[in-house]
Structure formats: structure tokens, C-alpha cells
């Protein structure tokens, strides 16, 4: 072990001939961070016209935002949709992943293929297709939150399944089940006492990521339901011609909420 570590350490030593790579790296980091910093500044600016820097700083836009009932309602709707979709996802995908890893490996292969589907059917295509299908048929789902929950569920499948598959591969599943059986546990007992606790962290991380992703979903929400059940993202879109400072405050609020979630996901994945 120690040797491997040492070997790795040696490779870290900066060497002068590679110093020019630093430029590339920091340029990239800057490229990614610049829009965010500018938005932050804009959301705090009392007025920012033709000058290089804003005239003054204020929290006005934030107070206005968090006092707006339409914003709060959209926020609540987004939360509700996300939680419903995630609960559905957990209830369906968990047994599926367990079966795929203990009984039917072909199912695992099938799921790996299905996970490419979101790439093959991008949201706008999918929602147009769904609009055609459900708009007139016997089930008038378009415009109701139900269709959105179904869509969101589909979107979480790859995350949830991948997270569970990874967690299940990380433990000697077959041997743990065999050992539990020989010690007198039934299959459900073995799953509950031995397998599920080992999936907990992986699944929590997937839930956090899925939540961030769904919370930010816009295309399906806008095209399928639109203003009839306004989610946070749709609200944000509708507000984009309002004050720029106001929307900047929204973006920054949003960003910090998601950052918090990401940090929590990271903490769980580290303790895993």
C-alpha cells in the first residue's frame, strides 16, 4: 500500500514544463464561473446601467421575490411534483434493480439500454409526441400535473437505476444473500436487514441529484402543462421580461438552494 501511495505522490510533483497548462485550467474555470458572478452582482445592484460597475447594493429584489405569492405557489407546486415523481421512482425502480441483480441479468442489460432513451428522445420531441397522444384521447391528461409526474418519473429512471446498480455491484450481493439464508433469514428478511442498508447512501445521492434535475426541468412542464399548473421554471420563464434585477435574484436564490442540495448529496456520497 505504502509504495503505491508513494508512487502516486511522486507523480503529483509539479514540473516546470507543464506549468503552461495552468492557463487552460483557470480559463475554463473562469468561463464557467463568470456568468454566475455577474448575475450575483446584478441581483444585488440597485441600478446598473451604462457604467462598468453598479450604482449601489441592495437586497430589495430578494425581498420582493420572497414576498410574491405567485412565486411561492410555483415553488410549492414544483416541490410537490418532484416529491411525487421521486416516490414513484423509488417504489418501482428499487425492486426492479434488486431482481435484475439477483435473478435476471438480462433485465440489467435491458435497463442499461433503456437508460439511453432520454438521449434518443429529447424533451421537446417527447412532449410534442405526448401532446399528440394525450391531448384528444380518452384520457385528457394534458394540462394536469399527472402527465408531468409520469414524465418526471421517466426522467429519474436512469439516475435511480444507475445509482442502485452501482451500489449493488459494490457489494458481493450473491454471497451476502447466501450467507444470510444459511444463517436462517428468508429472502425478504435478508433484503431488509443486509442489502437495503448498503444501498442507502447511493440511493440518497441519486434522489438528491434527481431532485435537482427535476426541479430545474422546464420543457415538459412548459409544453405539457404550461400556466395551467405553473412550476417554478415556468414562472421563471414567464418573468424573464420583468425586471432583470428581479430575475437575477431568482436565479441566485435558486442556485444557492441547489448548491445546498448538491453539497448534501456530496456529503452522503462521501460517508458511503
Amino acid at each position, binding site marked *: 500500500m505504502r509504495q503505491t501511495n508513494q508512487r502516486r505522490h511522486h507523480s503529483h510533483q509539479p514540473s516546470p514544463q507543464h506549468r503552461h497548462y495552468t492557463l487552460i485550467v483557470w480559463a475554463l474555470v473562469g468561463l464557467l464561473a463568470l456568468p454566475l458572478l455577474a448575475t450575483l452582482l446584478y441581483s444585488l445592484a440597485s441600478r446598473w446601467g451604462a457604467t462598468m460597475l453598479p450604482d449601489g447594493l441592495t437586497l430589495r429584489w430578494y425581498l420582493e421575490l420572497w414576498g410574491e405569492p405567485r412565486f411561492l405557489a410555483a415553488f410549492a407546486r414544483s416541490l410537490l411534483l418532484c416529491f411525487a415523481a421521486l416516490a414513484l421512482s423509488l417504489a418501482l425502480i428499487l425492486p426492479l434493480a434488486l431482481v435484475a441483480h439477483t435473478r435476471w441479468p438480462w433485465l440489467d442489460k435491458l435497463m442499461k439500454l433503456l437508460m439511453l432513451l432520454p438521449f434518443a428522445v429529447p424533451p421537446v420531441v417527447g412532449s410534442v409526441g405526448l401532446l399528440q397522444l394525450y391531448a384528444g384521447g380518452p384520457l385528457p391528461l394534458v394540462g394536469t400535473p399527472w402527465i408531468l409526474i409520469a414524465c418526471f418519473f421517466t426522467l429519474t429512471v436512469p439516475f435511480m437505476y444507475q445509482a442502485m446498480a452501482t451500489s449493488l455491484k459494490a457489494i*458481493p450481493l450473491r454471497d451476502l444473500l*447466501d*450467507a444470510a*439464508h*444459511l444463517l*436462517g433469514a428468508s429472502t425478504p428478511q435478508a433484503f431488509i436487514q443486509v442489502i437495503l442498508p448498503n444501498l442507502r447512501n447511493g440511493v440518497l445521492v441519486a434522489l438528491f441529484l434527481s431532485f435537482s434535475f427535476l426541479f430545474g426541468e422546464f420543457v415538459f412542464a412548459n409544453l405539457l402543462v404550461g400556466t395551467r399548473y405553473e412550476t417554478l421554471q415556468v414562472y421563471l420563464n414567464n418573468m424573464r421580461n420583468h425586471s432583470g434585477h428581479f430575475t437575477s435574484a431568482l436565479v441566485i436564490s435558486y442556485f444557492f438552494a441547489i448548491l445546498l442540495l448538491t453539497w448534501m448529496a456530496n456529503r452522503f456520497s462521501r460517508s458511503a
Partner: protein
Amino acid sequence: MAFLNIQCLHKRYADQTLFAGLNLSVERGQLVSLLGPSGCGKSTLLRTIAGLTDIDQGRIELDGHDISRLAPQQRGIGMVFQNYALFPNLSVFANVAFGLKQQKLDKALIATRVNTMLERVELSAFAKRLPHQLSGGQRQRVALARALVIQPRLLLLDEPLSALDAPIRRSLRQQIRSLQQELALTTVFVTHDQEEALTLSDRVVLMHSGEIIQQGSAENVYSAPVSPFAAGFIGHYNLLAGAAAASVLGRSTLSAIAIRPEAIELLDTPQADPRWGTPLAGRILSRQLLGNIVRYQVQCAEVTLICDCLNRSAADLRASGSAVWLGVLQAEVRTLAA
């Protein structure tokens, strides 16, 4: 009547026959090793005994009762796996207590029995640790304690030592053997390591391609292999046939013969002896120091023989190229089935 009795076991998977009428019996309190190269079916056989792999035909009896249709939970069998298979989310204590908890025993009783068992494997101090905080040897001792605490009628060990380093392997080998003898526990031990099988077992069962090739005491299997496969797998035998065999034996022979390298005496002078008859003249080709053994390659007329001697003292070592006389212990020359 043997304690464990496997009769006429048949098992196919897809187009492959794994067992075709295999029979095996293990006496009460014995430790029997299933020894063989990987793919010989030894682990599958162990899993059929545990009920983890089902069988097509045949009967598995434990203590006079047919267990072949019972679920693994009902067989009363303890098993230790190569990769430990400890429950990663449970502490050492909870791992060992797992089987007793399934039996819904009283909490205080569970604690007493678990603690006793942890003391036995010298892990009392580690009761609160999680498996990933232990060394490999410690983990396997936890796995052993977990299998033993439920007081199984039969203990199955599936290559329990092969993931461990040599020194730990040796000490855990000792510990397993003494626990097994103390508890007089009938045990089946699967391994691909001939030294492990020889040192541990009351009986060694040599398997190849789903069949039992040879079985008997360690001494017997080691010193009297029945086939070239057995001779090749279990030691560094000199395998000779035809003219080569005849020149070493001093008489013509139709069968192949096998001579263990340590059954050849290196002599300074051609002294005759009833044990080896007339010595063969030879010349040392090379010498290898293997530790406590010195291995010589000796050229005898047309034949090259391997001879092992104890590494008694540096002064006794023979140089390459020097002449020696070889006394082949006639009683230790084995004639093999073709």
C-alpha cells in the same frame, strides 16, 4: 453410516455435465478437504450441500435425514466464504449475532453466546468495529465465528484462506483446525492449495472435472497418487515412462512411474542398500535453494531427475557439475494407472 452422505449426485447446467453420479461420505467429526484445480466442481459440490445450488438427481443425507429438498435456512449448515461475505453495514458483534437473531433468541442469551464466540476467535476487542475496519485475517475470523455461533451440524469452508497473505493463512489454518477438533465439528473444506489440504484434513478428496479421482488420508494421497494427474497436482513428482522408467527401475516396465523428489537419496559413494538397491550414477545440473529444501536437478544417463534434500548446512551443499550417486527408495516408487 456416515454423517454426511451424498449419493449418486447428478447436475447439468446448459449443455455441460457438472456431476454424473458423484458419491461422497464424511464421517462425524471429520474434516474432509475437497482439493482440485479451479473448475473441477469442488465449490459447486459445496454449494449443493448447502442448498445454494439445486441438484438434478441424487440424495444428500445429513445425520440420517434426507436434506436435498430442504431450503438452505432449514439445513442447519454453517458456511464461510472466500470473500468473507460479512454484512458491511453491521458491526462485528451484529454480524455474529445475525443467525441467533433470526432464531428470535433472548437478547441476553444472544449477547452471551456471541461474546463467548468472539473470545474464542480472539476478537472481543473488535466487537464494535465494522468489517471494513478489520484486516483480512480478522474478517475471516468474524465469518468463522458467525458460522459457528449457530452451532451448525456441518461446517462448510469455501477456500476461506485464499484471499489472505501467506503468514496469516498459516496461522488461521491452525486456528480453524484446532476449533474444528475442539468442537468435533464435521467439516468440508474446499481448496486448490495442496499444502493446505494436506496439513488440515483427516481425509483429502482429490477432484477433477466433476469426478473424485482419489481419496484417503493426507499421507496416503500424497505418497501414493493413482494417476499422472494426481501425481502432478499434489507434488513435484518425477514422472517417467518407457525407457526412462526402465533405466531408473533397473528393469523394464509397461506402466508410467512416479517418484517423489524427496524419496531419492544423494550419496557420495555408490554404496548399495536394501532400501534403494544399486545406486545410479549422476551429475548435478543445477541447484536451487528453496528455503528449508535444496532442490537438485541430476542427470542420470538419459534421464533428468529432481531430488530434494534438507538444507541442513551451507557446508553440505553440492556444486553444479559434481558427481553424485542416487539411491531411489524402491518402496516409494509408484506405478500409475495409464
